[in-house]
């Protein structure tokens, strides 16, 4: 299954359309083709967590991570986003790349409809792996934690894994959260994330920030609410 080279994947993903007019309040920073390709390539080549798997992307935007996951052999991929405009872009991207992703519009901060709780309070979902580039929580404090918790709930009962990008400056905080929840979080890679100057409040032309690729292993989880 895993025949694609990093360069090929990067070449494809650089063609995926992103945000035309990003919305500040949703922290719609694009995931570049380079970042997405490196992230997904590492996930598949080092851990085999995409090929033949059921994959979920929370805050999927234009669908770049889901499209890349499909290119690397995922069996089923779903993407959730709150923004109708970007979901339309994601749908076009899927058609263009001839990949099949189930898209759902939902507000993850309110209720994640892709996870059900049974009568014992345990979560039920079909996913093995979550890949996501959530908001970093610079505009809405704590939204990064909301996404991370939703992702953990989506795979915990299947002993799955979550891969998520976060600002390195929030690392200690996130590791503490993981310990609190009873899941083990490790830093898989450190990346430089280039945020182009898309928003008026950016004084600089573009901004390099240090980002961690976190791996949350829920295989031995002892989830606490």
């Amino acid at each position, binding site marked *: 299954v895993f025949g694609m080279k990093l360069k090929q994947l990067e070449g494809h993903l650089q063609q995926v359309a992103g945000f035309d007019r990003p919305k500040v309040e949703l922290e719609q920073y694009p995931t570049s083709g380079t970042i997405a390709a490196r992230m997904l390539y590492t996930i598949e080549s080092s851990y085999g967590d995409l090929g*033949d798997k059921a994959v979920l992307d929370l805050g999927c935007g234009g669908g770049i991570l889901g499209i890349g996951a499909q290119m690397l052999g995922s*069996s089923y991929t779903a993407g959730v986003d709150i923004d109708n405009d970007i979901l339309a872009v994601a749908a076009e991207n899927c058609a263009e790349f001839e990949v099949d992703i189930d898209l759902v519009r939902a507000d993850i901060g309110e209720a994640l*409809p892709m996870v059900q709780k049974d009568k014992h309070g345990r979560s039920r979902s079909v996913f093995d792996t979550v890949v996501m580039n959530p908001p970093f929580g610079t505009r809405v404090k704590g939204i990064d934690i909301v996404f991370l918790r939703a992702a953990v709930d989506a795979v915990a009962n299947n002993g799955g894994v979550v891969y998520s990008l976060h600002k390195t400056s929030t690392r200690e905080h996130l590791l503490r959260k993981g310990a609190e929840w009873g899941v083990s979080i490790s830093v898989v890679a450190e990346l430089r994330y280039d945020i182009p100057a898309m928003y008026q409040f950016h004084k600089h032309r573009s901004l390099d920030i240090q980002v961690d690729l976190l791996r949350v292993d829920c295989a031995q989880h002892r989830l606490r609410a």
Partner: protein
Amino acid sequence: NEMHLLTQNMLQCIKKGCNKDNFPLRISAQELRTDEREYDRDFVIRMLPRIEYEALSRSAAEIGVALPPQMPADAQSNDAFLQLLHHALMNVAVVTGTLTCPNCARVYIIKNGIPNMMPNETEV
């Protein structure tokens, strides 16, 4: 794009206070599509314990796909059943239609294959 039953099998009503009998959402489809995804036996077997089978069987019937009402006892080794299940989960899909909560009757719209599960949508 399109919504497959594997996705619909995870969707429940998210209206505040509607916590009981809010699943599975009833499908009314205006436009369906059938993909030709290759039968993936290992994947379907892995999904067996993760799906709510009886709900799936009811939902499949709503879009014209017949599944046994109960999962056969020998499901894991019953290749004919697994192929049927794969077809229902991964190939038959809704492009346009609605999902209705069996409890509170709230309607969720599916447009361009994308179900709208936002909490405060009033459009019907």
